[in-house]
């Protein structure tokens, strides 16, 4: 509080002196806004994250895990990636929080308080895989713009809430409904209150799935602020941007939702394959729906030195968007031969599946252990980068770790 007051009183010239450069268009800085150069924040303390998490961006906050941090069956908050498009809302008042259901295809616009949502509708808990559409972007060539995620923008936590379909049916869905779009309480980076940082959605078929929920708990506790407190739409298996945080509204649309980050190259890929580096027209881009099959070796951490004759216990998780994973394999010879891992069933649909095996090595030397999952539609992970796309989405190339036998 005191800091805010200080900031309010500080003049533009004070900021300019501190930064050592003129602030261009400084007169348009929103009141109470601290220029980024003056931010001194410990995000690990702020968001209760592990110190090994990697900060990609601090305005807006974006943070990812490393493969070995994701070893838990159920991802705890401290290892959950943060992907924000805008600024996290401040001063959340849960007693006056409202969720409005509206749009062209709602029978009756309805507003619910959090207490009503919790008391009126049945609660469900599902373990749901959320992966950023851009997870793995850093590997694309030519590079794609945006946060350069490596492998850690994925999580699978327990989410508790009410089914979206129960609420939509309570408000009434007209026959011409095609899509839903969410609205959130976060703020655009510029502070422009007329601009939504992000307002995406899913087709009705996804909105009406049992596992598509409006969650108020994550891993049995209130959702952490960075992950959408007090209410989050969770649509597992799709780009995590479809799971709107700090939810204030759902519009039932008679057309494909046209909110922020639904158009252009945002969360869209070329409808037909293109050569790397191609320019693709807007009308030739298609919205990403289910995420592709993928897996991660979470133990051991890459860089393991082992004694000759010793075996390693390998384990990790595999997931496949809307589908299940049917086969999990590993290779220690760059794909010349593959051996099968033990693969567990998911605890529920859209939850990741755990795999494990024991791996031996024939001689001393440098090895890479590559992991490859195959989904129930018979799609396997590629060893090389999959099709290039302008924003670098959907990199599901095999994960690998380095091992040296000494």
């Amino acid at each position: 509080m005191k800091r805010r007051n200080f900031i309010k009183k500080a003049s533009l010239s004070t900021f300019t002196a501190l930064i050592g450069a003129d602030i261009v268009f400084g007169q348009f800085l929103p009141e109470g806004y601290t220029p980024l150069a003056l931010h001194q924040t410990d995000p690990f303390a702020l968001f209760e994250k592990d110190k090994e998490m990697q900060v990609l961006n601090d305005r807006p906050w974006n943070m990812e895990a490393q493969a070995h941090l994701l070893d838990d069956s159920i991802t705890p908050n401290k290892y959950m990636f943060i992907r924000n498009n805008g600024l996290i809302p401040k001063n959340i008042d849960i007693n006056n929080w409202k969720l409005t259901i509206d749009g062209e295809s709602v029978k009756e616009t309805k507003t619910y308080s959090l207490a009503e949502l919790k008391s009126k509708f049945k609660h469900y808990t599902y373990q749901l895989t959320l992966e950023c559409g851009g997870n793995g972007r850093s590997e694309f060539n030519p590079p794609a713009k945006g946060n350069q995620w490596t492998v850690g923008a994925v999580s699978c936590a327990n989410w508790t809430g009410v089914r979206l379909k129960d609420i939509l049916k309570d408000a009434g869905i007209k026959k011409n409904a095609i899509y839903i779009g969410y609205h959130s309480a976060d703020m655009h980076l510029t502070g422009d209150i007329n601009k939504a940082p992000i307002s995406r959605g899913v087709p009705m078929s996804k909105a009406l799935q049992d596992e598509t929920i409006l969650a108020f708990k994550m891993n049995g506790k209130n959702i952490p602020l960075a992950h959408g407190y007090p209410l989050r739409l969770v649509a597992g298996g799709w780009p995590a941007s479809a799971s709107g945080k700090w939810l204030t509204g759902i519009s039932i649309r008679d057309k494909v939702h046209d909110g922020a980050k639904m158009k252009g190259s945002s969360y869209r890929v070329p409808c037909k394959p293109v050569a790397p580096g191609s320019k693709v027209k807007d009308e030739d881009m298609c919205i990403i729906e289910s995420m592709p099959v993928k897996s991660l070796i979470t133990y051991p951490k890459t860089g393991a030195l082992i004694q000759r004759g010793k075996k390693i216990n390998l384990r990790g998780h595999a997931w496949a968007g809307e589908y299940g994973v049917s086969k999990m394999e590993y290779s220690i010879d760059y794909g010349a031969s593959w051996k099968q891992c033990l693969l567990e069933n998911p605890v529920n649909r859209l939850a990741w599946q755990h795999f494990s095996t024991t791996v031996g090595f024939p001689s001393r030397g440098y090895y890479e252990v590559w992991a490859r999952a195959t989904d129930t539609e018979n799609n396997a992970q590629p060893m090389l980068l999959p099709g290039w796309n302008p924003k670098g989405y959907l990199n599901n190339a095999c994960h690998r770790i380095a091992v040296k036998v000494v």
Partner: protein
Amino acid sequence: MILKRKYLFYSVVSLLAVILILFIRHKSENENNYEIVKESASFNGIKDGIHINTGLKDADGLPLVIAHCTGCHSAKLITQNRLSKDGWQEVIKWMQETQNLWDLGEDEESIVAYLSKNYAPSQKGRREPLKNIEWYALED
């Protein structure tokens, strides 16, 4: 609110710690060393060719980039990206069309030149070798 208070608490503690360290160093070390401390603590300092406070490379155009680009978003959004001249130009156009970025006027040329020179792509191929491996003894 709890988070905010915690954050305030941490900020105050770390600020006090920095002041204490600077104070002790100032008392105990000679004039030359004091200059170094002052430099690294400054918001405007450059160390090893990097602007300390933003992480941006120290090169022609740096003040313009700080002034125009870090008002709304982190400099990390620049330093983690690698784009061609056309690529950076397109990002600016996209920000102007959708994200409220202003007309950069005659500064645009210098900004694009800075970005495309200092944050240019390198050829990565279809899959890079594993890099920066930190080796450790695995005991099971």
